[in-house]
């Protein structure tokens, strides 16, 4: 077992109220699995990802990575954020090399590897550009190359495509599927987009509205490469949508009640 989450709970303080964000989450992720976490907004899926990353500490429960408890962030669990989080003071190449530089990979080797990953995301010609010169989709590609270049044991993706326009998003989904087929990285991918989850994941974990619990753990064994909008995909997507609808209504009711 690559990643082992046991009984993780987390509460937050919001306007002096204690809000239970995650309740007793247990989840195992195998080597090479592509797991999508899906749920209505505020279900704590990003919180769970941050706990796996070591950026947030759980209140109860443990996260084991290859059997070792996670206590702090580290390059074995690289996060790709919704907001690209590229460094504006570095060029595209500098950004992709960053993690390897932290690891102490020699200059020539890290340059060669960085170029290889930039080729993988089709951005070789932009290696000397600064990040503000790139479009949103290109920035996320650089972020993906930067994360892959570190060669993490597990890649954590926190709604990485959700702020992109529809076309860029679709292109990146296709590319991510290709890259995953090529590298077989273990990936935990947070999204609120059911189609995206079904398209990308080997498993889709459906979470409930606050407090976040695991509601369903669905194995998607559709053959790859998958095609967006194929009949089987639509079927699976619809059944998960059905499942989620109730949760989304709960959230809506709660939010309207709050307001």
């Amino acid at each position, binding site marked *: 077992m690559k990643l082992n989450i046991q009984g993780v709970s987390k509460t937050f303080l919001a306007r002096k109220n204690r809000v239970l964000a995650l309740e007793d989450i247990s989840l195992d992720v195998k080597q090479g699995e592509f797991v999508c976490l899906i749920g209505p907004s505020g279900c704590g899926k990003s919180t769970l990802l941050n706990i796996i*990353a*070591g*950026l947030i500490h759980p209140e109860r429960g443990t996260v084991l990575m290859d059997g070792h408890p996670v206590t*702090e*962030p*580290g*390059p074995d*669990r*690289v*996060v790709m*954020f919704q*907001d690209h*989080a590229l*460094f*504006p*003071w*570095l060029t595209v190449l500098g950004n992709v090399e*960053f*993690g390897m*530089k*932290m*690891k102490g990979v020699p200059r020539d080797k890290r340059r060669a590897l960085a170029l290889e990953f930039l080729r993988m995301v089709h951005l070789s010609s932009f290696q000397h550009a*600064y*990040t*503000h*010169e790139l479009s949103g989709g290109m920035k996320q590609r650089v972020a993906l190359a*930067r994360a892959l270049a*570190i060669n993490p044991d597990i890649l*954590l993706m926190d709604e990485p495509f959700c702020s992109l326009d529809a076309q860029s998003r679709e292109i990146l989904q296709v590319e991510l599927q290709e890259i995953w087929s090529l590298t077989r990285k273990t990936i935990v991918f947070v999204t609120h987009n059911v189609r995206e989850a079904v398209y990308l994941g080997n498993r889709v974990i459906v979470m409930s509205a606050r407090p976040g619990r695991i509601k369903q753990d669905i194995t998607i064994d559709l053959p790859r490469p998958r095609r967006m909008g194929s009949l089987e995909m639509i079927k699976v997507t619809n059944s998960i949508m059905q499942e989620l609808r109730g949760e989304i209504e709960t959230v809506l009711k709660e939010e309207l009640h709050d307001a």
Partner: protein
Amino acid sequence: MRSAFRVICFYLILLLIWEGIFRLHLWPAFLFPSPLQVFETLANGFYDKSFLIGIGISMERILLGFGISLVLGIVVGFCIGSFQILDGTIGPLLNGLRSLPSICWFPLGLLWFGLNENAINFVVIMGAAFCITLATDDGVKNISPIYLRAASTMGAKGLKRFWYVILPAALPSIITGMKLGWSFAWRSLMAGEMLYVSLGLGHLLMMGRELNDISQMFAVMLVIMALGLLVDKVVFGLMEREMRIRWGLNAL
């Protein structure tokens, strides 16, 4: 092109007015020199190397003093920006000390170090270090947390984290502080050099007064002004420009 022409015209007219006032003989020539006299002194000063030596000595001093303030300011500023406890305690103190005009450190410097090089260095450092410290502190505090999170998940720790993440992320603010620090340091240095036979530009200026050589005073003042401007515009100007291009701030 047109604007350059206009600027040149403006300064030519200014020189003519200066010459005109000189020719009115409102004041005796030893109180108010003609521009020609000043340029002659300027040329002589460079020809007999006395100005060059003065510039060299002053630059050497300021590079030392400013260099020390820079290292000190960045290290202390980083500590204050990173540790809450220091922020609450040392922060306000430094803010208070910064508001003290650097010349006010002279009596203390003279008492502690005597009338020598060290007193001057002390005042230069005191003049520049506080604003570099506070600018660094500000820069560190305003680093977008997303950069720090990204850096930590990519394994940036300790000194590497400081050198490759915190410092470059805070650089825009640090450059602003450096610019301000430089101008404070330059002022303090000139004030300090007037105090004794320090051989720097400040001393040359004071020598003009002692010899009743008004054109020397004007000439040295021009040199001091030009040098201050040159460093501000060229060194820091280029740094700022490069940074703005990288960060994409010019597009705004």
